[in-house]
């Protein structure tokens, strides 16, 4: 009898470790199930291949040589070009404002595709077919997938388009996942009855949020606008400052709330129906079709950019993830070990972050896989109809749009469309594979 009596923390720890062990084997099961699905595994490999192409796009398709010897010196112009783009280096005088192709190198290694997407090949303008004779010096300079109306290389555009497509998919879904997981887990974990706050902290938090938005965004709108014109880096810095202001004010508010919690009236606890609030928010977002919403918001942007499109897609497509997360946490919060953690007096944040969320993540993974496919499709659609994406940005969607002007150029319609199709399909297949792997009905 005495052996069975353990103190509560030990029991909890045992449960936890048991649960941790179980969840580990759970992921093993998921992986095993996923690997059984040949199609999904191959899709994952194709995604990796695409990611590789995107990462190496500057080395695969570039107007500059990979390595060259020029006037007795050896250069690595592609590397140099990347360094210059990042602001780390500057071009030597002899390489400023030149056409690389026309230089007399002693020895040179060109990238497989010796064009950048925006390079105009004047000799091969007016949409030259890949099958036709091209005005090129040798097969080295052939446009393998043809050119567009003003002589840009289609293959190079396809390779660099991979970067845009994958980035849009990843970053927008990253944003969506952050918001969705946060919203969904708050709604699911606290429900309508679990979040109790004192009157003082409610008032102070609302005030802090109000002033946070005022000082963080309202007062900094011109600074943010200027940063937008300067580029991605300064936007991120300025946004971080804005968020720091808001978070700082919120922290301050909570500090004050602690002090005020001794005042009798202000210390009264009120239950906040967090689930109702967040569910209503989701309902609002869902009642306007996503594409419609994204197109409308994109139309308000004065200077279109890919980054803004990513943010817009991220801000509008988190609802699916939030719903999944909410449902999972509504289930999990009733499970024994969460109750136990609570009984032990662990604070709410720790319980949510360390115990509840990791166990709810698997369905979210499915939503993210399908979400990336949808985001890539939306980006392609926006480029295709010419809203929200900068006109000079060459993407799969914008190349496809060019085929509308020159219907005879079948290569402009087939290849970019095929790329969009394959990318969307492989992400959908991975999503499908994950669904099958995670579906408890098949877990035997």
């Amino acid at each position, binding site marked *: 009898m005495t052996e069975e009596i353990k103190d509560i923390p030990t029991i909890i720890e045992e449960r936890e470790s048991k649960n941790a062990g179980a969840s580990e084997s759970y992921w093993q099961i998921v992986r095993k199930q996923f690997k059984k699905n040949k199609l999904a595994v191959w899709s994952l490999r194709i995604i990796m291949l695409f990611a590789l192409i995107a990462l190496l796009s500057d080395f695969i398709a570039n107007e500059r040589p990979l390595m060259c010897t020029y006037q007795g010196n050896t250069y690595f112009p592609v590397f140099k070009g990347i360094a210059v783009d990042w602001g780390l280096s500057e071009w030597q005088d002899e390489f400023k404002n030149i056409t690389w192709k026309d230089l007399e190198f002693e020895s040179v290694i060109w990238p497989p595709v010796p064009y950048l997407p925006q390079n105009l090949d004047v000799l091969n303008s007016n949409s030259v077919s890949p099958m036709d004779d091209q005005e090129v010096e040798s097969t080295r300079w052939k446009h393998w997938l043809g050119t567009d109306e003003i002589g840009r290389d289609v293959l190079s555009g396809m390779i660099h388009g991979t970067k845009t497509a994958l980035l849009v998919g990843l970053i927008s879904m990253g944003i969506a996942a952050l918001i969705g997981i946060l919203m969904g887990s708050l709604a699911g974990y606290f429900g309508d009855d679990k979040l109790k706050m004192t009157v003082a902290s409610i008032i102070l938090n609302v005030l802090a949020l109000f*002033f946070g938005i*005022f*000082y963080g965004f*309202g*007062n900094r709108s*011109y600074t943010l606008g200027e940063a937008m014109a300067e580029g991605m880096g300064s936007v991120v810095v300025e946004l971080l400052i804005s968020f720091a202001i808001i978070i700082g004010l919120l922290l301050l508010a909570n500090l004050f709330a602690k002090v005020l919690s001794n005042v009798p009236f202000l210390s009264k606890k009120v239950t906040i129906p967090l689930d109702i609030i967040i569910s*209503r928010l989701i*309902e*609002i977002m*869902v*009642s*306007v*079709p996503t*594409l*419609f919403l994204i*197109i*409308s*918001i994109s*139309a*308000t*942007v*004065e200077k279109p950019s890919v980054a803004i499109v990513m943010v817009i897609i991220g801000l509008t497509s988190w609802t699916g993830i939030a719903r999944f997360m909410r449902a999972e946490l509504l289930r999990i919060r009733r499970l024994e070990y969460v109750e136990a953690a609570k009984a032990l007096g662990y604070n709410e944040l720790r319980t949510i972050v360390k115990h509840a969320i990791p166990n709810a993540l698997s369905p979210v993974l499915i939503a993210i896989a399908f979400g990336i*496919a949808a985001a890539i*499709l939306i980006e*392609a*659609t926006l480029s*295709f*109809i010419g*809203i929200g994406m900068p006109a000079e940005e060459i993407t799969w969607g914008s190349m*496809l749009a060019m*085929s*509308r002007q020159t*219907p*005879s150029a*079948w290569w402009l*319609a*087939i290849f970019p*469309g095929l790329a*969009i*199709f394959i990318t*969307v*399909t492989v992400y*959908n*297949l991975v999503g*499908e594979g994950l669904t099958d792997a995670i579906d408890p009905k098949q877990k035997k």
Partner: protein
Amino acid sequence: MLKYILTRLLIFIPTLVAISLLTFIISINTPGDPVDSMLNQSSNTGQSSDKLASEQAYIEQRAKLGLDKPLFYFSFTNATYSDTLYRVHKKSHRETLEKLSFKYGNWPQIANYYSLIKKFENKLFLLTVSEDLAEDFRKLKEFTNSLYTTADEKTASTIISNIDFIVNGDREFIPVRPNFTALQKAIISIVQNQSPHQHYIPKFIWYGLDNQYHNWIFGDEPWFGQKESGKIYMGKGFLRGDFGTSYKDKRPVSSVLWDALQWTVLLSTLSIILAYIVAIPLGIKTAVDKGSKTEKSITATLFMLYSLPNFWIATLLIIFLCGGDYLDLFPPAFSLGKLPESAPFWDRFIDTSHRLILPVFCLTYASFAFISRQMRGGMLNVIEQDFIRTARAKGLKENTVIWKHALRNSLIPIITLFANVFPLAISGSFVIEFIFSIPGVGKLTLEALTARNYPIVYTVLMFTAILTLIGNLVADLLYAFVDPRISFSSGKK
């Protein structure tokens, strides 16, 4: 049941308010000036009479559109923001003044500066100079005009010194010199009396009920009783079915929308019916034959169809099937028949029906693939259940088991999809309508967005939202109809 519906309808109200605000925010933030785009104004370098006339036209047009009202009931800004700023007519001027007052925090001086630019410009337009100064004079007007949109100190001082150079360069400009000196003084006084820290102080401005948002939703005509004579009203407001006037062709939005809606509803209805007719049997078939070779290939094909971007397929179809350099099976989809727009709708429909084949196909295939996949999933769930085994054990025919017992229960997921049909019917498919140049709601909205035709954007967004909400409600009610176990009267919130 009735109580449930009523509660749900009540919940619609805050949702709709939020959506109307969202729409409103999107619209007012769209870059560009709708009044300008409506008037197609040229720049102000013409004759003085032209300039005055065009300015008058601008003011009248702005009042007519109701854009001379404050935006909202209240505004929460900083202390530098003037509550009379909305009275400045030009949008670009307003933006510059707002920026200036944010920067220097002294609205009275800035307002004075603005009125002095205006006075100086008016004086300029009354002036006539000799031929050889014409070029200078033109430049002078241009510089003055650019002051309206300059909030940057450096640029402003360059412009001012340029003006200074011209004005003090020739005797003929003597009449405008006093105005120019006043203008220069105003700038100095702005810089001297600046209090930039002012923008850290929050400020709340109450504008009252006569604002753009209120007029859009509730209208400014009295709900009861007589209209005041002599007063110009904006309209009855969204709630009373008055959606405003389209900026582009000055027709009522309701009639513009109605024309577009016919095409969209026609297309969507055709494609939805087709999709359901094909998808449900196919879904059932693939579920029943699970594991067979045909099933596997059908499922794979459906998956491919589902992932095929419809704008790609549409582009390919147009390139390869509609004249051009390849097959010529369909007429170029870029026109909708020879009949004029005024011809009766059904005549035009018959004339163009064979042109609709491709768009309907593009709209159908993806949703058809999606619906059959859902149907298959629902059916698979049901087939594994005990009551189906019982039905089979009873000796019922396989067909009876599937079509009578399983189908009813597997329809539930399909019903949720039906909720999406409502908004789909109105917003149509943007891209398909865009590609095939179908004058439906999607194309209308795209054009309205790029042309800043707010009233149309408002109305379409609001209607899609309302229809989605109703669609969701109908789906929930249908649930109860198909599955009697679901009840709304008790227990459920």
